[in-house]
């Protein structure tokens, strides 16, 4: 059922794009290519650079270095902008305008907008059309922002933390709407703090950490990496031996302690104990999504320092 747009090139590209704000490096030489019809979730902690990435792709800020292209073109071009719709993380709409007035205004910006009724229905705003924006609840306001993003029937949607502050049910509805858009062949970029959400919606997850991409893969790949366990122990087993054990992703020494990142802890521990019964100070912890990737980047740094 899913329609994949038949277009050449990429919907959006960053080519070693950096963004500095004074001393702060918000984004550090990021390369990112988004295919037509792909749903990409940008995952990362506060300050990781998610909003910066979205703003660059929307042409709201210019990169300090590198290039940004939307549909092979400069993102600030009006012609390109008629193909995008966006929902920003912070957007205070005028409190004294009614929902339909906002939607109609936004529809007038686009050459081939959706019908008003369709927008209202898709965004779940039926019954709220005549309300003033300022008199809506936070979640309802969020839905109005979603409605504006949809109203021009754009090919590419940017959703910056679209589900923050939504209750569980609204969030599920929202996910269902996004899936409908995906089926229509829209290209979607959304940012989120939650692996669960990224997994539920996207084909591809890009994990940002301090302005760099630290992981990029399918939800399955990212999830299994995130589900990995961290094993720490003091043992005679060497790093190269540990790496040879099935299921071990990474192994390195943290001073006297051997640290291992593995898909599952039990078989690895069994194997370690078999090789070194004298093993001590065994510790097993879960490595959450961020931990898993911070570890990847952190270990590199440790090696660099050594």
């Amino acid at each position: 059922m899913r329609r994949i747009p038949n277009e050449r090139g990429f919907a959006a590209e960053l080519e070693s794009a950096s963004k500095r704000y004074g001393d702060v490096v918000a984004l550090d030489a990021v390369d990112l290519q988004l295919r037509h019809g792909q749903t990409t979730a940008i995952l990362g902690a506060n300050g990781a650079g998610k909003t910066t990435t979205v703003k660059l792709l929307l042409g709201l800020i210019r990169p300090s270095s590198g290039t940004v292209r939307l549909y092979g073109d400069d993102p600030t071009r009006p012609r390109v902008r008629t193909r995008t719709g966006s929902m920003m993380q912070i957007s205070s709409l005028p409190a004294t305008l009614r929902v339909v007035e906002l939607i109609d205004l936004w529809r007038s910006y686009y050459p081939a907008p959706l019908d008003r009724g369709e927008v209202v229905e898709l965004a779940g705003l039926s019954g709220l059309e005549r309300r003033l924006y300022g008199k809506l609840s936070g979640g309802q306001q969020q839905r109005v922002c979603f409605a504006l993003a949809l109203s021009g029937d754009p090919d590419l949607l940017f959703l910056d933390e679209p589900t923050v502050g939504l209750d569980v049910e609204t969030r599920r509805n929202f996910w269902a709407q996004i899936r409908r858009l995906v089926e229509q062949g829209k290209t979607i970029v959304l940012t989120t703090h939650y692996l669960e959400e990224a997994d539920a919606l996207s084909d591809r997850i890009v994990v940002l950490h301090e302005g760099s991409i630290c992981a990029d893969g399918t939800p399955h790949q990212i999830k299994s990496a995130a589900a990995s366990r961290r094993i720490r122990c003091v043992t005679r087993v060497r790093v190269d031996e540990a790496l040879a054990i099935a299921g071990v992703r990474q192994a390195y020494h943290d001073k006297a302690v051997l640290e291992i990142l593995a898909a599952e802890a039990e078989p690895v521990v069994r194997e370690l104990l078999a090789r070194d019964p004298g093993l001590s100070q065994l510790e097993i912890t879960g490595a959450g999504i961020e931990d898993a990737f911070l570890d990847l980047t952190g270990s590199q740094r440790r090696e660099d320092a050594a």
Partner: protein
Amino acid sequence: MSRQEAVLATPEIDETTRRGGDGATDRRGRRLLRCWLLESRAEFLKVVRMPAYAIPTILFPAMFYILFGLSFGAGQQAGSVSMSTYLLATYGAFGVLGAALFGFGVGVAIERGQGWMLLKRASPMPVGVYFAAKMVMALLMSIVIVALLTGLGLAFGDVPFEPATLAGLAGMLLIGALPFCAFGLLLGIFLGPNSAPAVVNLIYLPMAFASGMWIPLPALPEFFQRLAPYLPAYHYSQLALGTIGADDSRPALLHVAALCVFVVLCLLGAAWAWRRDEDRTYG
């Protein structure tokens, strides 16, 4: 759903309609017009539903006119016309100037600081339409101000009821909103969202005073009489005074030329400031 399938089947046709194949300019023109109407309506509704911002802009000149033109000025002459007629022209100009600088300038500056503007900038909203809508609002406010002052002058002052003269004055006052909308545009884009109201007041009030909008220029110290020709508001108020035969002896063409130069400078400055602003995100 069927619409989506149609798009699937005929991607080329979809592309041409997007770019606008036949009658493209016509359709584009109609789209811009519709966009401008809706944008203007939104501006209007915002003001009407939340009048707190607009009311001072309207009442300020009326209050001054009542105080200086109708109370102190009662029975006095300013050159060949009554004081209340003279000050109707200058406070009218003062009011229109305020509508352009506050409604337009401060309005744009404040909105630049809001997430709403960021969202608009990310949309394909034609920027010109946004400014044109702000201009409509400034003009509407100007009409209200000029009508209010004229009514006050006729009812309580010595303003003679000469419809042709009054219409000429009102027309000149409203046309004068245009160059100051250009100034408002420059200030709106150049100033920071937080400092704009204070800075605009610091420009507005002294410039109005020094241009003879509060007290007739001949009654001001010589310093101001020599300074005035360098102020755009002076040329504007002289053109307004010209319609009631109360201007000083400089040719009208000079005033028009001065305002034209002023507009060009403002627009150039605004274009520069707009480019500079692209990289700043307040939202």
